[in-house]
């Protein structure tokens, strides 16, 4: 394959600078196993992260991720390059996650939610793993802040949350967010502003001059 691959799998930490030249897309459309393996290696973690923030549950995120890549595998032949490959995949991911969330709400809105479904323990574990050189108090504080930030983010209405996640967590430019969500750029701006302001209000006691 004529695509530079030196970036490897670690690219998913900062969003993949995948070479989206037509040659790579052509390889995918031709059914190259190497190209698909590379696509998976680069996109599976960012897409999983994005989906997780929308569905707020690891098990559901796993199901949605599989559905997303099934659609990618099925639909790659119809990809005509109107948008970038990343935008196309993210659009599928947001669409699938939103559908899954809607159907989940329809199915479970009357059911009690188990405390085991919360992600707090894993957040604490992740914070502990990432902060081995910190004091227990700092670790606990960071874990608590993460939980609070996640809860605040989860409490946003889906339209605002999707925009905030794509902008603040995935780092997409306005234009790409508009393409992913199928919105006008102006709508993206206004939703982003509204979402940020709502988050600021929810987190006013945790962030700011005295806390940061």
């Amino acid at each position: 394959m004529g695509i530079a691959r030196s970036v490897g799998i670690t690219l998913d930490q900062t969003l993949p600078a995948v070479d989206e030249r037509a040659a790579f897309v052509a390889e995918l459309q031709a059914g190259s196993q190497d190209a698909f393996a590379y696509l998976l290696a680069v996109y599976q973690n960012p897409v999983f992260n994005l989906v997780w923030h929308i569905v707020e549950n690891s098990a559901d995120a796993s199901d949605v991720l599989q559905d997303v890549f099934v659609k990618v595998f099925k639909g790659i032949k119809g990809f005509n390059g109107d948008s970038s490959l990343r935008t196309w995949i993210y659009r599928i991911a947001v669409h699938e996650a939103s559908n899954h969330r809607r159907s989940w709400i329809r199915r479970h809105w009357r059911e009690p939610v188990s405390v085991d479904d919360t992600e707090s323990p894993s957040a604490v574990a992740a914070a502990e793993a990432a902060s081995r050189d910190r004091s227990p108090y700092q670790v606990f504080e960071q874990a608590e802040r993460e939980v609070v930030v996640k809860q605040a983010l989860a409490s946003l209405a889906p339209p605002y949350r999707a925009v905030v996640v794509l902008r603040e967590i995935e780092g997409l430019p306005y234009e790409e967010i508009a393409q992913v969500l199928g919105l006008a750029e102006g709508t993206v701006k206004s939703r982003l502003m509204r979402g940020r302001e709502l988050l600021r209000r929810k987190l006013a006691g945790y962030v700011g001059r005295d806390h940061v």
Partner: protein
Amino acid sequence: MFETCVEIRNHYSDYVDDLCSPEDRKSIRYHLSFCEVCREQLEQWEAVGEELRALPRRRVPPDLALRLRVQMSRRLNNTPLLALWVRLENALKPLLIPATGGVLTAVITFCLMMGHGAPINTGPDVTVELVQPARVQQLAPMDFNTGENGVVLVTQVNAEGRAKGYRVLSGQGSPEMMQHLDRMIFFSVFRPATLFGKPTDGEVVLSLRRITVRG
């Protein structure tokens, strides 16, 4: 130039994303230089952004990554012929070792049985035809006179190549002649008759005539 805090706050989003025009940025900075409340709010906006970006990124669990790869492989190899071949291969693979073992065992058993059980023919090769008549292999020396017409006799030869008896068809039948014939036939060697290569009883017709050569 922005006049009020509300106007300024409508541009925070662009400001933190660095999308403001230079004039707007200058105007916002001017406002922030004296408005403590707006400055604090903007700091909170930036802090919220930092908190969001600092959230740990979710990674795909290894088992899910494996499932994705398997799914991908299935999708890519989803041609009927290939699927049939894979199914056939999967069905035959478990039988491969038992089948090989079975065939090897059968071959070894066959070789052992054939090596020890069956008799080995070490004698000379015999023409395998439907029927082979008995023949004289070596006739004993003839030291008696058969007269002018000679003696013609039929000798019965058993499967071991031994003469069981004989009958004189023509010639002298005197007791002295019969003694000579008994002795000669007793010391003669015959090759038995064969049926499908297997020795069996048969008859040999002998015509005896003494020939005297001078010299």
